[in-house]
């Protein structure tokens, strides 16, 4: 029976695990695992015996995948990490996403340079998924500030949605065999064409199991003041699709900024979605005042959630995978900052409390009830 809340926290200096009873009153911290090495993606896989995975981006010795089968008490490297075929010409720079696949030991892994790998043995061996990795667009994608990364993998029956920065949103309707760019309505502020076929700097995509046609996207916004070719592009940063990602429309009205990185959906309500708006110039909290913003009507309007968060002088960034929400009946949100704080937002973000205030800079936060 699932009776504890587990957080995996990927930082610049290794992977941490925090554990609490379901009360979430107090979390015990373990780690760092893979000490000194940056972790950009983590996964708590609850299928069967729960496994905790973390990517370990070793600047010296290359990528490793860490795996724990004891709820994050100990970690071992899997037998191998994803690697491009020898004659491919690309070399793995980072791992940006880890997601469960179809079968119990199947894993999917999005990497930099943008490509998708699949494992059928819990991460011990990996094969390139050619439908997207060798897509005709693949060699035309350009790196964003964080690198050319495949950061989002969403599965929905036969459909697979991928988010690539900068590549855009790609959709497969045949379980990942073939993919098409699906970016109608997804704007780009850094190209003369405001709505290109592909090449958008998508930051994160989120969906909900009870509303499979519905997707939310945090795109690279902050282009309202642009006055170059193609004209101004306000509100292209926060988007919604109701047709499995084939077309998208803005839901950014009412937010203090349409720039941000993460986006998550309430586990029990597909209409409730959360973002962390950032000032586009600095990519930090607007006015030094951090807040999570929530919409309870699918993006029709937004409310600021800041009770308990600092009221001034806070200039951190919340990165694309550093916000998550648990699945308890009254869910809590969790976000990590580039200044090393881990916050919990109880009652769906109504009241915030700092769980840990001096971790290394946080890249990603994942939560599961196990």
């Amino acid at each position, binding site marked *: 029976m699932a009776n504890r809340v587990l957080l995996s926290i990927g930082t610049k200096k290794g992977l941490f695990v925090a554990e609490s009873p379901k009360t979430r009153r107090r979390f015990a911290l373990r780690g760092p695992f893979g000490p000194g090495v940056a972790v950009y993606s983590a996964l708590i896989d609850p299928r069967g015996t729960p496994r905790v995975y973390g990517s370990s981006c070793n*600047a*010296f*010795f*290359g990528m490793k995948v860490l795996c724990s089968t004891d709820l994050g008490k100990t970690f071992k490297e899997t*037998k*191998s*990490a994803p*690697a*491009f*075929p*020898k004659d*491919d*010409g*690309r*070399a*793995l720079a980072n791992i940006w996403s880890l997601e469960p696949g179809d079968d119990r030991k199947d894993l999917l892994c999005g990497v930099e340079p943008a490509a998708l790998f699949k494992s059928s043995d819990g991460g011990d061996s990996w094969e390139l998924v050619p439908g997207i990795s060798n897509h005709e667009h693949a060699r035309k994608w350009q790196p964003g500030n964080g690198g050319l990364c495949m950061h989002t993998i969403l599965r929905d029956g036969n459909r697979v949605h991928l988010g690539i920065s900068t590549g855009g949103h790609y959709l497969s309707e045949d379980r990942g065999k073939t993919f098409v760019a699906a970016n109608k309505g997804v704007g780009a502020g850094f190209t003369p064409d405001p709505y290109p076929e592909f090449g958008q700097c998508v930051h994160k995509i989120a969906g909900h199991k009870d509303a499979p046609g519905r997707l939310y996207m945090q795109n690279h916004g902050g282009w309202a003041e642009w006055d170059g070719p193609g004209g101004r592009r306000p509100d292209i940063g926060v988007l919604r699709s109701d047709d499995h990602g084939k077309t998208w429309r803005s839901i950014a009205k009412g937010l203090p900024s349409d720039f941000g990185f993460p986006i998550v959906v309430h586990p029990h309500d597909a209409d409730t979605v959360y973002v962390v708006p950032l000032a586009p110039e600095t990519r930090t909290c607007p006015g030094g005042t951090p807040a999570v913003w929530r919409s309870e009507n699918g993006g029709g309007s937004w409310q600021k959630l800041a009770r308990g968060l600092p009221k001034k002088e806070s200039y951190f960034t919340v990165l694309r995978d550093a916000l998550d929400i648990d699945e308890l009946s009254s869910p809590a949100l969790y976000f990590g900052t580039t200044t090393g704080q881990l916050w919990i937002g109880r009652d769906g973000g109504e009241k915030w409390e700092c769980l840990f205030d001096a971790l290394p800079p946080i890249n990603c936060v994942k939560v599961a009830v196990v």
Partner: protein
Amino acid sequence: MTSATKITIHVPGPLRDCCAGAAVLALSATTVRAVLEELERRHPALHRSICDETGTVRRHINLFVNTHHMRDRNGLDTPLAPGDEVTILPAVSGG
């Protein structure tokens, strides 16, 4: 030099798990490139930690032949003589 040239490889602590804990390996090779090829055959995890998929030595790994960095000689084609020592070292970096 012959293909039987005996070379000693010094493995840094963080990579010894890739070769059953060995701090030192001995093998036959006539160039640094041949050393890496032999390591790929015998200890693939060790090779993956030294070179990326394209065969390029990772940016923050330095390979020394005796006391000389291989880049100051002939790179991967640096010839090896009997008794030479190849040392694998992570570069100094911080942050």
